[in-house]
């Protein structure tokens, strides 16, 4: 039939390209195989263990739509600081939605009372971050639809594992985006948010592994490029994230892994 029965994905950005994404979905439909090369597997692994407890597929919020299967949302870095704030807004939408669902599922979950107190606070913060950025962006804002493949909102392990991934990603994203801001006032605001995300990250990690050093796994936090962050975030967003006029240079942080 002229169709490949196997396709190679060497990076998550391959999935952004319309042709390969369509092919990917087509292959899944006809029972073909997709080989994810190490870079993609690493990106997925960086999410940590999101398959806790009795994991079951849950595309909550997406009506079953898979990540990246929706319409394209383009962040145009020619807009300067606005693009960075749009990027932050995308992540805060994801976090706000996630924690709102977590709180909504408290009744059926094995989260302790102490867990719930922390998660309710975090939900409040992320909603406030999201709504602040929405106000700041005005007509430059947009809505994204999250999706949560294989997240079990009734499982403490699944919820905390996913939360850890989001918080660590948010820290790395803000740390990596700082270099692209040109207005010191915007850098200060981003700074005000990232330290709270880091407080969240430490709390979640402590809940997963108390009495250990896991609350802060490195002396230096990650500094991720927008492309790297988008590659991970795309796994939880129905809309297809795209960049226009993406920055051509990225200055690494001390971990040299951005």
């Amino acid at each position, binding site marked *: 039939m002229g169709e490949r029965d196997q396709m190679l994905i060497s990076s998550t950005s391959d999935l952004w390209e319309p042709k390969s994404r369509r092919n990917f979905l087509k292959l899944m439909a006809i029972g073909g195989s997709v080989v994810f090369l190490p870079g993609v597997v690493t990106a997925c692994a960086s999410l940590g263990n999101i398959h806790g407890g009795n994991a079951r597929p849950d595309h909550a919020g997406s009506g079953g739509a898979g990540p990246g299967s929706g319409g394209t949302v383009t962040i145009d870095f020619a807009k300067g600081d606005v693009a960075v704030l749009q990027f932050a807004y995308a992540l805060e939408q994801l976090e706000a939605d996630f924690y709102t669902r977590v709180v909504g599922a408290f009744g059926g979950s094995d989260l302790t009372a102490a867990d719930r107190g922390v998660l309710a606070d975090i939900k409040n913060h992320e909603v406030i971050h999201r709504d*602040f950025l929405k106000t700041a962006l005005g007509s430059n804002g947009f809505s994204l639809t999250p999706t949560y493949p294989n997240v079990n909102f009734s499982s403490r392990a699944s919820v905390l594992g996913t939360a850890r991934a989001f918080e660590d990603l948010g820290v790395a994203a803000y740390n990596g985006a700082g270099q692209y801001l040109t207005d010191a006032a915007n850098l200060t605001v981003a*700074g005000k948010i990232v*330290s709270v995300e880091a407080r969240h990250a430490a709390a979640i990690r402590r809940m997963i592994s108390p*009495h250990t*050093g896991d609350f802060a796994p490195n002396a230096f936090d990650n500094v991720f490029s927008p492309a790297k962050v988008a590659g991970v975030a795309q796994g939880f967003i129905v809309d297809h994230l795209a960049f226009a006029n993406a920055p051509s240079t990225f200055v690494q942080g001390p*971990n040299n892994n951005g």
Partner: protein
Amino acid sequence: MDNTIATYAASHIDPEVLGRINERNVEIANGGPATSKLTAALALGSIPIALGALANDVFAQTPSDVMDVLQFALLLEHLEAEFYTRGTQSGGPIPSSESVVFATIRDHENAHVAALTQVIQAKGGTPGAKPAFDFTAKGAVPNPFASGNYQVFLALSQAFEDTGVRAYKGQVGRLMSDKQVLSAALSIHSVEARHASMVRYLRGQKGWITGDDRGGLPAFAQPIYNGEENVTQAGVNLSTLGNGNGGVASVTEAFDEPLTKEQVTAIVTPFLA
């Protein structure tokens, strides 16, 4: 500037910095933005303590800004590194259940000292000498390293970590001309916030700061939390965003606030021997 500051400035300040003070006076005369009072900065690299910072809403960031921030950060990291090194020594106050937590923090602060030292040297600067510290603040605080004084140790730990977060936050705007140093500073700043969150939990506090609540710390620690009650971001009062989302308390928790170099110096100075 009044006469006394001018006199001090003439004898102690780097000429380049003095020139910027004069520019600043012109700015004010021409109706430039109002700022908090100006205080003088000691010549770079000679003594690790700065009495204050020049307003950074007016001056473009320069390499001397970057070096000044690095030296200031190094001072704060020296303080933390020594605090945790002494606290984690055998016979100290930390219960065995939390020994890993504080060994982790200690190791991080030591790594921060090493990194900042290396960057300063790479830029041709001389790292400020580590000062002598007095963690009893001349007897105002019980010995935090005595085996029975874990709560004192924890209190100072929280004070230093929350201060460090706000200190870095107040300085990153001066690093925009050097993206490598900016990225490094951001990567340290967020780790200090992780430390703060963890230590606050060990003190029975939330990982985040509510209003200007110092969370049971002694009164001398209040300056560390003043300003955290702020609900205005980017010129917008966000109070109503707390509706259904934990109220104004949550709005204050959702954002950490910067401290100026002057404010941080005032907080830290009592712990210099």
